[in-house]
């Protein structure tokens, strides 16, 4: 499996990604591929002068949401394709994740229980809840048989 993501738009080499308000990358399903893609996304956002807190939120959402798709969305041995798009606007950064995994709407995922003791604490189920804390909005729909998830992260107003 190729761990290096392939660029759909950003790697033309003729135009700085920082100048492009719409940037995307497609990568094969795999944890190492996701890690490499997250690095590319962080680099793009840094070059685009996006604040560190916004970069953290986008990176976190990508880790958790695309990570869930990799862990639970594909059968063993499946080789899926995940597309990540970043759109920069003055007031927000929008992350769009499109994949061909089994349908899953994370916006409907319930909040985990608040445990009273270590023994009661559930091990998993925190990721989507943690994403909700960091982002302004999440929207899910199915489009041509693919999952499409849009995540808005607010940018701090510039003085």
């Amino acid at each position, binding site marked *: 499996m190729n761990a290096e993501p392939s660029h759909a738009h950003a790697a033309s080499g003729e135009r700085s990604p920082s100048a492009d308000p719409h940037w995307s990358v497609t990568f094969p399903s795999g*944890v*190492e591929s*996701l*890690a490499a893609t*997250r690095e590319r996304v962080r680099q793009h956002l840094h070059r685009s002068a996006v604040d560190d*807190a916004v970069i*953290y939120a986008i*990176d*976190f959402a990508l*880790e*958790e949401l695309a*990570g869930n798709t990799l862990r639970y969305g594909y059968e063993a041995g499946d080789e899926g394709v995940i597309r990540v798009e970043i759109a920069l606007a003055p007031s927000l950064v929008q992350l769009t994740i499109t994949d061909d995994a089994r349908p899953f709407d994370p916006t409907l995922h319930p909040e*985990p229980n*608040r*445990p009273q*003791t*270590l*023994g009661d*604490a559930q*091990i*998993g189920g*925190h*990721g989507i*809840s*943690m994403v909700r*804390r960091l982002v302004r909005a999440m929207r899910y729909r199915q489009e041509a048989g693919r999952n499409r998830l849009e995540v808005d992260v607010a940018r701090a107003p510039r003085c």
Partner: protein
Amino acid sequence: MELVIQEQSKALTRLALKGRLDTVSVDRIETRVNAALAGGTHGIIDLSEVTFLASLGIRLLLNAAKMLDRRGYKLVLVAPQPVIEQALRHTSLDELIPVAPDVDAALALLRS
């Protein structure tokens, strides 16, 4: 992600995690963290140089605390950066695993 074993005595195991605690790094270090904490002592994990904490990192910390709790020992987390502290608070992990500002405060919590 780097795991540093800072102290392993008869009474205490003190570890430090450094870097990004995400899917790839948790896969690489979780077994080593659990092995380091399995010696029958209280545990301290210094988080001061952790810059990213994903849900799998929360799982790693929770698993470690549960393992120690089952054996009658405590885990204390030390000096998380603000963004990490927010994640601990949001997941209520800070209500289950004590968080101390420094090692001396962590030792005091373990003695109490």
